[in-house]
């Protein structure tokens, strides 16, 4: 077991290396000279050269890569081109905000997705199932951006239940309850796609297990449906649920970036979109690298969880 986890950890290194190379490549392949783009045009060629040298843009690519990597690891990515302040001060707080929203969206998509899928699965073919599946089909074909708008319009404008955006009430105390209240609507919007993927998956898994031989055997021996559902089917589809959740983390991240702008959530998506507008490559690179690394780590956690859930591995085997 421990050896398996260690080997998975070792597998991360080449992956992170490739991702970091690709992210480094973004600035190399960018459209124009970032310094010329951002700085005033009144400067002479020599002054521009000096600034390029100060940012290390005059050295060979591999050297820039190593310096860049060192900067990322030691102080979070050097200086921002446009704000001329440390990148870490811009990227990290936004990243934490995104993490909060992403975690809430993941929890929502698992809880609601499993609930919807389970109900639909055990009512397979009945009216409730048909209605749920129709809604699932419509929901999976709605643009997330528009769905987010409708959520704001309903919850904040029409019914006035929830705040229309932001993370905290500016006049409030900024406490945990306040954060939760601001979190509900964007989390629902961001979780739409992954929630429906999980719901479809759980429904199919429940239907399949209900028709399997072992469930028929239990049923013929007089076990109640609730007991079979809870103890046997539930346990058997637990690890596929974890697997599917891991696979939908990418969708959650994408969903979060889509809704951040709508809900004025001060997260990494907003920062990255602004940075792209201003060709601020240090910010773009650090932001993308941070999110990609998070994705890789979450993937690792999913794999380890799956190993832990697998009874064949639990008892010292493999």
């Amino acid at each position, binding site marked *: 077991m421990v050896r398996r986890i260690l080997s998975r950890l070792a597998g991360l290194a080449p992956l992170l290396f490739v991702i970091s190379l690709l992210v480094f490549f973004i600035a190399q392949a960018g*459209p124009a000279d970032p310094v010329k783009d951002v700085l005033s045009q009144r400067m002479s060629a020599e002054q521009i050269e000096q600034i390029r040298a100060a940012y290390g843009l005059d050295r060979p690519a591999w050297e820039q890569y190593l310096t860049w990597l060192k900067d990322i690891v030691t102080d979070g990515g050097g200086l921002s081109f446009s704000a001329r302040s440390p990148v870490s001060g811009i990227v990290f707080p936004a990243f934490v905000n995104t993490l909060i929203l992403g975690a809430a969206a993941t929890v929502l998509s698992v809880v609601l997705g499993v609930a919807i899928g389970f109900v639909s699965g055990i009512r397979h073919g009945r009216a409730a199932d048909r209605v749920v599946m129709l809604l699932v089909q419509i929901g999976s074909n709605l*643009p997330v*951006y528009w769905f987010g*708008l409708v959520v704001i319009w309903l919850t904040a404008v029409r019914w006035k239940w929830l705040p229309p955006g932001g993370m905290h009430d500016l006049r409030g105390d900024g406490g945990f309850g306040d954060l939760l209240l601001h979190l509900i609507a964007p989390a629902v919007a961001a979780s739409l796609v992954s929630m429906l993927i999980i719901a479809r998956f759980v429904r199919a898994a429940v239907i399949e297990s209900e028709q399997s031989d072992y469930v028929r055997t239990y049923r013929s021996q007089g076990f109640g449906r609730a007991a079979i559902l809870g103890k046997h089917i539930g346990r058997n589809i637990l690890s596929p649920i974890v697997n599917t959740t891991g*696979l939908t983390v990418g969708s959650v991240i994408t969903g979060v*970036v889509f809704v951040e702008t709508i809900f004025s959530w001060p997260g990494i998506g907003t920062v990255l*979109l602004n940075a792209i507008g201003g060709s601020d490559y240090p910010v773009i690179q650090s932001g993308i690298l941070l*999110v990609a690394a998070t994705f890789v780590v979450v993937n690792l956690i999913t794999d380890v969880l799956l190993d832990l859930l697998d009874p064949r591995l639990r008892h010292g085997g493999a």
Partner: protein
Amino acid sequence: MSTDTHGAAPPRLRRSFPARFVRNREAFLGLVVLVVVIGMSALAPWLAPQDPNLGDARNVLAPVGAPGHLLGTDDQGRDVLSRVIHGGRGALVVAIASVTVAVGIGTALGLLAAFAGRRTSGLLMRVVDLMFAFPVILVALSLAAIIQPGAWVLIGTVVFAAVPYVTRIVFAEARIEREKDYVEAARSLGASEAAIVRTEVLPNLISSVVIYGTSLVGVNIVFTASLSALGLGIQPPDADWGRMISEGAKVLVTGHPGVASFPAVAILLVALAFNWLGDGLRDVLNP
């Protein structure tokens, strides 16, 4: 459908492909919607009642059903109906073209992985698995940083997102085909591995790939709409469904939901139609 009145005729087990297709209500409905929408987009310059980019400052936010503006006008006084008719052109071309490219690449990779040695196959599928779950938005943001927001960002992102799906499907099916007798027979007759893949296995996978590609187009029209809404995709002044959603966002919250919602409904309808067509084709082609 059939006109045989001879009671003695044996029941036909399989109808012809067009007959089965028309009998499949889902597929037929999907096809009809798509023909209408694609025809409308192609003929947009002649069909749209107004210039989609022509604003009228004296007639902003006209309600639905206003004279001359069936779906009202937006906050710049542009005719929403004309913009909806024009707004699908970019999105449809982008989604269909990039899914076609992705299907080509994915089929090639899937076949390669299925017929290559264990090590190549393992490495390839490991990469594909990672791409499969990767947050695609990062690809879109990176591309936007390199080549500036526009249709090419959408194309690159959709290709990246769709290739792993197609590769997995083709890989799984090709592995099954590989073990079948006809492949063994071809091999024993001296056919090379490449010839077996090209002339024996590939034709058997075409229908699955077409079915899958059809559904992928729908998924990606929905996805690229959100990218365009964020400003990463098709740029103004071109009318675009996704872009219209974010432009209508400002006025949606002030009680003019139509400006953002008509394009959203158009996207929903087209995406559903592609899904219906895909599902229907599956029932017809792979019963």
